[in-house]
Structures are given as structure tokens and as C-alpha cells.
């Protein structure tokens, strides 16, 4: 497919990854290039495969709970909440309302943390270093809130079967108040630096366009799908935890290019901010964990599918239980895996420089792909 010119050109292969500054982990693409243009792409995943599903089958339900945090370490709360939801559905445990609200609030904080990283890393992919640090700065604020409640900054191990591990500390409200006050201004800063920046627009508008039907066919979900004009957000369409009471309206854009995938996440940060505010205002009193739930439960036989809207998309857990205290089959539907699978179709024809923002705009995280 070398360009049809009188000059003889030769295609060559560039091995991008597994160690490359912008593959966000260990991901390898073998790019066949014609000059600066990509002709073909052969993705290789699995460098981070830890066989999480096999690990789950060998461990007690409670033992896998902190492990679930490590499936997608940027949005670890979602994985462990899905784990708890699956077990709770099988055991028919009703979670107390306060625990629901706490889970919701911290999931939204976690989402902000994850999107902050996306913002920073996406800008970094395009060569702007400073937004990267700004993104991390705001992430620290959310991490502080999470740490003072859960005890850790990344792997929280916060939800429990039938509730959550800990209630809010007294000092939480003041810190949260401060965070809620400063955060919108910080997003405005982000928008000032990138949103209308001519260089940024030139690099992202019309790059990596995917329409809604194609996105669905490839199993895309989450912000990527919503950027392609599909109005679907589990928080809006199939509310779980406290989303039903809080109400949520999905952020949907229509162009399906890198810019919209970026903008969806920026807007979602604002939406999450509003949700956290609502959560704090409407936080009900009561117990934080359902009483008399064993720490080492024997889960009744059956199968269940728990679905949560993680920052990367539709995170699902298909759990088959055989009535013992260990899962029989623990299938993870990780959104990044499906989101990434289109990369092979998206890359041919673009410039080498566009490979990076296209890959970055998908916001995949490799442990989530490889599990």
C-alpha cells in the first residue's frame, strides 16, 4: 500500500512497545509504516496477565476483595464494589442506604481521580507536560479524601459484603468541603489550557473518528461510547447503589473523535463533582454495614452478573458459585479489553504522531486489559 508515486518507497516496521513512553503500560504494537504513515498495526497484549480469574477461583470471597482492587488500579473501587455486588446479589443481602451513598460517593471520587489521570496523560501524549502535573495535583486531593476514610490511596479495599468497611471520619467534611470548592476552578484551568487551544484542536479534532454503530459492534463502552453519540450510561439507564435516588444524566457527545472522547471525560468530572455534592447533602444516617454477614461467607449456588459503570466503561463481573466459599468461575468483563480491540482498525492510514493520541484517548489501562 505504498503511496503511488514515481519514487520507490519501502515499508518498514516500527516496534512500539512494550517499553515505550506512551503505551501506558506494557502494550506492544508492531506498526508497519510508510514514511510517517501507518499502514498496518498488529497489537500484542498480555504482558501484564496475572490470571486474576484463576486467582479468584483459588481464594475465598473475602480474600479476593483486596485483589479485585488491583485489576484496574486507577479505578480500583469499582472492581471491588462489583465484587461485593455480585456476592450480595447471590446472598440476597440488602445494603443499608448509608453504605450505598458512601459507595457512590467514593466511586465518583475515584472516577474523578481516574479522569484526572486521563486528562494529564492525554495532554502528555500530545507533548504538553504541564497538564500532566495539574491532573495529578487534583488527583491527590481526591486521594486524600479516600485515604482518610479507607486508609489507602490507591488500593482502598473499602467495600464489604453488605456495606462498607468504615464510616466517614469527623475531619472528612471539612476537607471534602474544601475540595468541592476548589475543584470546579481547577477544571476551568484545564479547559483554559487545552479545550480551545488551537494546537490541541488540530491534533485531536477529526482524529480517530468512530461512529456509534461501529463502536457498539466493537464492544466499546463508557466515555468512549458516549463520545460517539450513544446515550447509554449505567448510572442513568440501570442505576445501582444510590444513583437511582440521586439521578444522573449521561454526558453524550456526537463526533466520536479524540477531542470528544477527551471532552466527555472533562464534562464527566463536573458531573461527578455535582454527584458528590448531592451525596454529601443527602447522606442518610444509619448503619454502614448489614449486620450478621459473615466475613467468610458461603455463597449460595447460582450465577450472577454485576455491572458497574467504571471510568473506562462497562465493568462487569460474571460470577458462578457452586455453594462453597470460593467462586467457581469468576469472569471479568473489563472495559479496556474491548475498547482496545479496535486499535487495529483505527490506526491504518493515520500519522505516527496520531497513534499516540488515538491510543491515549481510549483511556485503556493495561492491567485492566490483561487482567
Amino acid at each position, binding site marked *: 500500500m505504498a503511496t503511488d508515486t514515481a519514487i520507490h518507497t519501502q515499508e518498514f516496521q516500527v516496534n512500539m512497545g512494550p517499553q515505550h513512553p506512551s503505551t501506558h503500560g506494557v502494550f506492544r504494537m508492531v506498526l508497519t509504516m510508510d514514511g510517517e504513515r501507518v499502514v498496518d498495526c498488529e497489537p500484542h497484549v498480555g504482558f501484564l496477565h496475572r490470571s486474576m480469574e484463576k486467582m479468584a477461583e483459588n481464594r475465598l470471597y473475602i480474600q*479476593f476483595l*483486596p485483589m479485585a482492587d488491583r485489576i484496574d488500579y486507577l479505578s480500583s473501587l469499582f472492581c471491588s464494589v462489583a465484587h461485593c455486588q455480585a456476592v450480595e446479589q447471590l446472598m440476597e443481602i440488602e445494603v443499608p442506604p448509608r453504605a450505598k451513598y458512601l459507595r457512590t460517593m467514593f466511586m465518583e471520587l475515584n472516577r474523578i481521580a481516574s479522569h484526572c489521570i486521563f486528562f494529564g496523560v492525554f495532554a502528555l501524549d500530545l507533548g504538553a507536560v504541564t497538564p500532566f502535573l495539574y491532573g495529578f495535583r487534583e488527583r491527590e486531593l481526591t486521594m486524600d479524601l479516600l*485515604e*482518610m476514610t479507607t486508609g489507602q490511596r490507591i488500593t482502598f479495599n473499602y467495600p464489604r459484603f453488605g456495606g462498607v468497611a468504615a464510616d466517614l*471520619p469527623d475531619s472528612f467534611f471539612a476537607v471534602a468541603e474544601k475540595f468541592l470548592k476548589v475543584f470546579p476552578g481547577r477544571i476551568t484551568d484545564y479547559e483554559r*489550557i487545552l479545550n480551545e*487551544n*488551537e494546537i490541541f484542536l488540530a491534533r485531536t479534532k477529526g482524529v480517530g473518528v468512530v461512529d456509534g454503530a461501529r463502536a457498539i459492534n466493537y464492544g466499546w463502552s463508557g466515555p468512549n461510547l458516549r463520545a460517539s453519540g450513544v446515550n447509554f450510561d449505567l448510572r442513568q439507564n440501570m442505576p445501582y447503589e444510590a444513583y437511582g435516588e440521586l439521578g444522573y444524566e449521561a454526558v453524550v457527545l456526537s463526533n466520536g473523535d479524540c477531542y470528544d472522547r477527551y471532552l466527555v471525560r472533562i464534562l464527566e468530572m463536573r458531573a461527578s463533582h455535582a454527584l458528590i455534592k448531592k451525596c454529601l447533602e443527602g447522606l442518610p444516617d444509619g448503619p454502614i454495614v448489614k449486620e450478621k454477614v459473615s466475613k*467468610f461467607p458461603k455463597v449460595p449456588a447460582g450465577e450472577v452478573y454485576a455491572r458497574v459503570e467504571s471510568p473506562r466503561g462497562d465493568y462487569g463481573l460474571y460470577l458462578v458459585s457452586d455453594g462453597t466459599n470460593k467462586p467457581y468461575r469468576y469472569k471479568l468483563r473489563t472495559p479496556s479489553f474491548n475498547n482496545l480491540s479496535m486499535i487495529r482498525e483505527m490506526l491504518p492510514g493515520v500519522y505516527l504522531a496520531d497513534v499516540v493520541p488515538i491510543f491515549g484517548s481510549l483511556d485503556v489501562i493495561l492491567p485492566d486489559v490483561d487482567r
Partner: protein
Amino acid sequence: MRVFRAIGRLVKGTWWLFVGMVTTTKHFLRRAITIQYPKERFEQWPRFRGRVAMVAGDDGGHKCTACAQCIRVCPAACITLERHKEGGVKGFVVDGYVIDIGLCIYCGLCVEVCNFDALAMVPEYEMSVYDKAELVYDIPKLLSRQLEPEFKK
């Protein structure tokens, strides 16, 4: 018309490039938010889960009753306990209790399941050593650091 649009775009583009510069300049004039790590340190939040430690009882010894709940729950299998039954003593006698901090994933489940408040997470996070073997903590080492009173729940 096209000329006007092009000029409009030029003006808009320049304006937003300028706004970006203003934003970075604004940050340039602000105070740095980082700290100089070994000289200064963050104050830990009271719940911070550092490494696992054993809580000293009133006599200064550990409070473990060798019920092995922590071993049962540990997702990393990093705790090893040796115990035996002795005539005349209720329950078990602890022969040895070892936590391999190199394997520990700091989930805090062992502290949570302990019914005798024998374990706690102390806010210690600087555990680097040159030899992996030093990461295996036995009872005296686990007792060596205690929670400050204000860190207790």
C-alpha cells in the same frame, strides 16, 4: 467571507494560546505544593494503613491467642503461625508468629478479623532493606512500633 472566517479563527486561536500562557503564568506565581520528602513529611491520616504491627498488651507482650483468623483471611498468605496445645492452658500457645512484609499487600483484613485487637496497621511506610530476609518480621519486630494514641480508632 472566507477571509473573515480565517481572520476570526486566527484571532480566536491566538487568544486561546494567550489564555493558556496566562494560566501557566498564574501557576508559575503560585506556591509549590510539593514537599521536600526526606526533610519534610506528610502527616498521615489517622486511618492510614502502613505495615502490620502487633499491639502490645499491658505487660508489653503480644495479645495473640493463635486463633489463626488472620491466616485464614490473608489474601497474600504472608502470615505464618506456629502454635501448640498445652495441658491446663485454655486455647493455644503461640510458638511463633511471622509476617513476611515483602508479600503483604496492606489490605488490612487481618486487623479487621482479629477479635482480640492483637494486630494494628501502623503508619510506617519506609521499610526498604537491602536484604529480603530482613522483611520477614517476627514477634519482637512486629511489636517494635506501636500506634501513637491519637491514631487509635
